[in-house]
């Protein structure tokens, strides 16, 4: 660094000459503009703005000027440096933006590539259907009752007015367990859950009982030794068949769509009297121009299940006073409901465990 310039000699400080400063500014701005990327801009910054840059050096010379000249020179250099810094900052922003843009372009990937690195799980459609049905009942204020699959003969039959010599016992081909004199069966229906409910609760009772049941049916497109049923039971004061119809109509409309209702045909079940078969209106053709309908095969109705007024004999065996209370019960196949709701003609895929089947339904139906 030079010492104080006590003798004003403009010649000695040519770098502070206006033209010189202007030239330095122009050179710097031109270099900044010429910097094509952030790397070269960094070099330009060092060369034109850094401590060893001409403008920085010139700035240092200001102190050597006579006091009367310092102001002008200072102003000149300050303006030049300001202009250069501004140009630099602008270029910096510009180049950063360009850089980012280029980087983002370079990082482009093919987003159509598959992404299924992790296994996909799913739940079984019958589980989902059971839960959907349970939710419909829960929304009505009913509760969901359950019981064992291996069940006492008395609860599966006798308590339900199916005495040992009741012809209906042969209707339900029962799996018996050994030894036979232990009177234990695989439940043929979820009705023993109804009996258990009446035996352990006091009316009013509003329950639905979904679950697996067993019959000695050979396994084919429409029969399975194990299948799923849901039964409903209401025991309260003043219960009538109209309430039964109302409950089934509600279930039908929730499960199959608005306006889908049911019809009753007289039938026979030991645990109910009067008894009825319940048909659900075909949700595909809705009974209009049914002839070509494949879902109901031209009937307009689909056989759905059985129902009726709880036989007073059942109430007595289960400790409910038939003078005070009456009730209704119904039952239908969950698998069967699923089959016609989802257009499945052969039930075996439900039990074959081919993962492609469950996977098709995901985790909600």
């Amino acid at each position, binding site marked *: 660094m030079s010492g104080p310039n006590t003798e004003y000699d403009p010649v000695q400080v040519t770098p502070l000459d206006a033209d010189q400063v202007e030239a330095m500014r122009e050179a710097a701005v031109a270099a900044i503009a010429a910097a094509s990327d952030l790397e070269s801009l960094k070099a330009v910054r060092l060369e034109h703005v850094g401590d060893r840059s001409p403008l920085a050096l010139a700035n240092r010379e200001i102190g050597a000027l006579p006091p009367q000249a310092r102001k002008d020179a200072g102003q000149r250099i300050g303006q030049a440096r300001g202009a250069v810094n501004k140009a630099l900052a602008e270029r910096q922003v510009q180049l950063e933006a360009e850089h980012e843009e280029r980087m983002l372009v370079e990082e482009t990937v093919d987003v159509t590539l598959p992404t*299924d690195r992790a296994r996909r799980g799913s739940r079984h459609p019958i589980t989902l259907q059971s839960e959907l049905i349970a939710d419909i009942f829960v929304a009505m204020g009913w509760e969901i009752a359950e019981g*064992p699959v291996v069940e006492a003969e008395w609860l599966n039959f006798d308590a339900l007015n199916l005495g040992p010599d009741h012809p209906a016992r042969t209707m339900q081909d029962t799996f018996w367990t050994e030894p036979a004199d232990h009177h234990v069966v695989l439940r043929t229906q979820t009705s023993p859950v109804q009996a258990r409910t009446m035996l352990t609760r006091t009316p009013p009772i509003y329950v639905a009982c979904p679950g697996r049941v067993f019959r000695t049916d050979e396994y084919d497109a429409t029969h399975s030794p194990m299948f799923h049923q849901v039964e409903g039971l209401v025991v309260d004061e003043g219960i009538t068949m*109209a309430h039964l119809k109302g409950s089934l109509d509600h279930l039908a409309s929730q499960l199959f769509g608005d306006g889908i209702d049911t019809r009753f*045909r007289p039938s026979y079940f030991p645990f109910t009297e009067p008894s009825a078969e319940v048909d659900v209106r075909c949700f595909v053709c809705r009974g209009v121009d049914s002839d070509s309908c494949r879902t109901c095969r031209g009937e307009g109705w689909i056989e759905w299940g059985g129902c009726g007024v709880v036989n007073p004999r059942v109430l007595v065996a289960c400790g409910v006073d038939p003078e005070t209370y009456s009730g209704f019960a119904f039952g239908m196949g969950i698998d069967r409901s699923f089959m016609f709701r989802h257009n499945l003609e052969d039930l075996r895929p439900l039990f074959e465990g*081919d993962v492609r089947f469950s996977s098709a339904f995901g985790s909600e139906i």
Partner: protein
Amino acid sequence: MKTPLSWITEYVDVPDHVSTDELTARLTLTGLKLEGIHSPGAAITGPLVVGRVLTMEPEPQKNGKTINWCTVDVADANGTGEPQGIVCGAHNFAPGDLVVVVLPGGVLPGGFEISARKTYGHVSSGMICSAAELGLGDDHDGIIVLPADAGKPGEDVRPLLGLDEEIIEFEINPDRAYALSLRGIAREVLVSVDGASGFRDPALRDTPAANDQGHPVVVEDPTGCPVFVARTVTGFDPTSPTPDFIAQRLTAAGMRPISLAVDVTNYVMLETGRPIHGYDADALQGPIVVRRARAGERLTTLDGTARTLSDEDLVVTDDSGIIGLGGVMGGESTEMSATTTRVLVEAAHWDATSMFRTGRRHKITSEAGKRNERGVDATICEAAADRVVELLTTYGGGQVDPGVTVVGTPPQMPTITVAGDRAARVSGLDISEERAVEALRAVGCEVTGTGTLEVTPPPWRPDLTDPQDTTEEVIRLVGYDTIPSVLPKAPGGRGLTRTQLLRRRIGRTMAGAGYVEVVTFPFVGDHDLDALGLPADDPRRTTLRLSNPLSSEAPGMTTTLLPALLRTAGKNVGLGTTSVAIFEAAPVTLPRATEPAPILPVDRRPTDAELDALTKALPDQPLHLGVVATGEAEAAGWWGDGRAVSWSDAVDAVQVVAEALGLDLTSRPADTAPWHPGRCAALLLGDVLVGHAGELHPRVCAAFGLPPRSVAAEVDLDVMLEHAVHLRPSPTFSSYPVAKEDVALVVDETVAAADVEAALREGAGPLLESIRLFDVYTGEQVGEGKKSLAFALRFRAPDRTLKEGESSAARDAAVRVAAERTGAVQR
């Protein structure tokens, strides 16, 4: 029950404007469900006409057969009026006979198309038909020869053979045994169909009074056999053919015509509902005695089966011994045959319960048994027997023997007391007492009283025993279709129980973890348990056995979900799904020594002690979770290699479920089938074992067709659900800085990482926030038989920043405990 419509209308008049569809729709709504309407001729199209055989020339053939070259007059049916030349292989006809001819262009059942074709040196233009060829039974013995007055040549033969008949099939509910007869169906038509009238009861006939000239009958068990009627026909011609109308109606009903005598008994059974048995009277020795069998007595029934009888079976005997299983099936020794000229007709009423038990005991299902066990009108035995002898003598000649044996009297029908408004109260319909009484009388009940009705059912309705039975009769006749729809108002419910919610959560958790839920049958056999490699004393080998399994291969209720899941996984692999991850949550059956389940009374609520005995008689049925995975846990792809499933995936499947339930499971090494002895973890909740997980034994993989290194887990969900954390407290977090300390410890390879971790955790003290094993190293640097376990420890105080050296001191303390407990040496 199948019947031609014309047979029904023989007993009841239906207005012309009521179509068959309307009739059956109405019957369906009142309880006789239409199964279908068939027509026997539906499968026959084209010209099927009456032909008169003009000439027949027998022509012996080289193959030893003799064919007949016939000319047949079919009038203008062939378009020319010329005789039709037809080759026929049958010989049971002669020139002048009327026969059934299908002309070229016709199609017979089975899609058999008829055309003029060259055969045996002639052009045969059509076919002379047998009953079998028309689908009318299986009689191949010869062609149909029509009665001489059946019709004129060229006429359509369909009406003559009943081929155009509408045959209606009803599904009969087990309580409506009366509808297993034309009598019952006609009566249903009468009460169900508007405008139906003129019911003619086929069982209402004048019958001769009983006398002592009939075949002697002694009934030793009047409870089992309240009525026994015997009539005899003599001089019967056993070669007499069954008249067409009987044969056609039996065929329509699905019964095969056999001989006149047998066909008539079946015909009267269909007509009246009363099963009839016919004996060859010449084979009878001495009086008929009805009694219970003595245990061990034997009888060969007419199906040729030798049976050992029980002391509950009702039998018909004579001096020779037992000649029939009463009401169920006759015996061989007195069976009617082609030489029977004296027929003894039995029309007896049998105790329904006995019939049911005998049928079930001897596994006999017969048309007679079906009716007898469901309940038959006890008052029509004489009428039915009289109808049989009438038909036998009308079509088979001979005389009705004047002897009429009638033993016993029909039981009284009970009287049912029922409130007059019961049907209204039960149905929710506005049914007046008058309407109720009218309906009950329509079905044949006698009704007296007002307000409280005294109802006596008709004898053909033994199913009506309780007020609820008469109530159903009233409501079904008023119409089930008129019942309004009213949603009952349940009191506020509790919603799903906590356990039900958690079970759903488990399913969703497993699906979220990439497992597909399957549903399998719970049946298991020894070969499954062998395939699992279970040792002989493994408790899972003790299964609850079924008396009547569908397959002898799988006679037990399974104790483990794994065999079915492994089979299912193997099946998927076989179908080309090489990466499979499945689960099932289902109960298993664990037998325990129990007393028998009592059969409790039904006329009262069982006591709590009785109910307890029921519960105790049942096996344990805990809910299990089974998991099987094979192939890749993570797929290979453009991102790089896949990751094969490992033992750890099986453990983690259980861990994610445990986390969903708020449970902290610990693992211990275990050696349990079906797992790899060095790659199986026992999973514990505190001290309670919940199950196992790990890699399967290579032999198990092979046995189920799975690739090596497939993995599985099975745990008791009931135990986990029982311990599931209900109300989890909110956690508190320290906001002070964390201090991290890593430590690598060398231990023997046999030392469990979980033990080292537990020691570190204990030694680290209360400042330890978390610990995580992040690396396991084996190799030269740590030496043979050793492994290095690297743990990341995080320390933090709840209320302050840790001081310099605090965390390293805690780490050192942790290492000291690990060294003491596990011999760990810090690297």
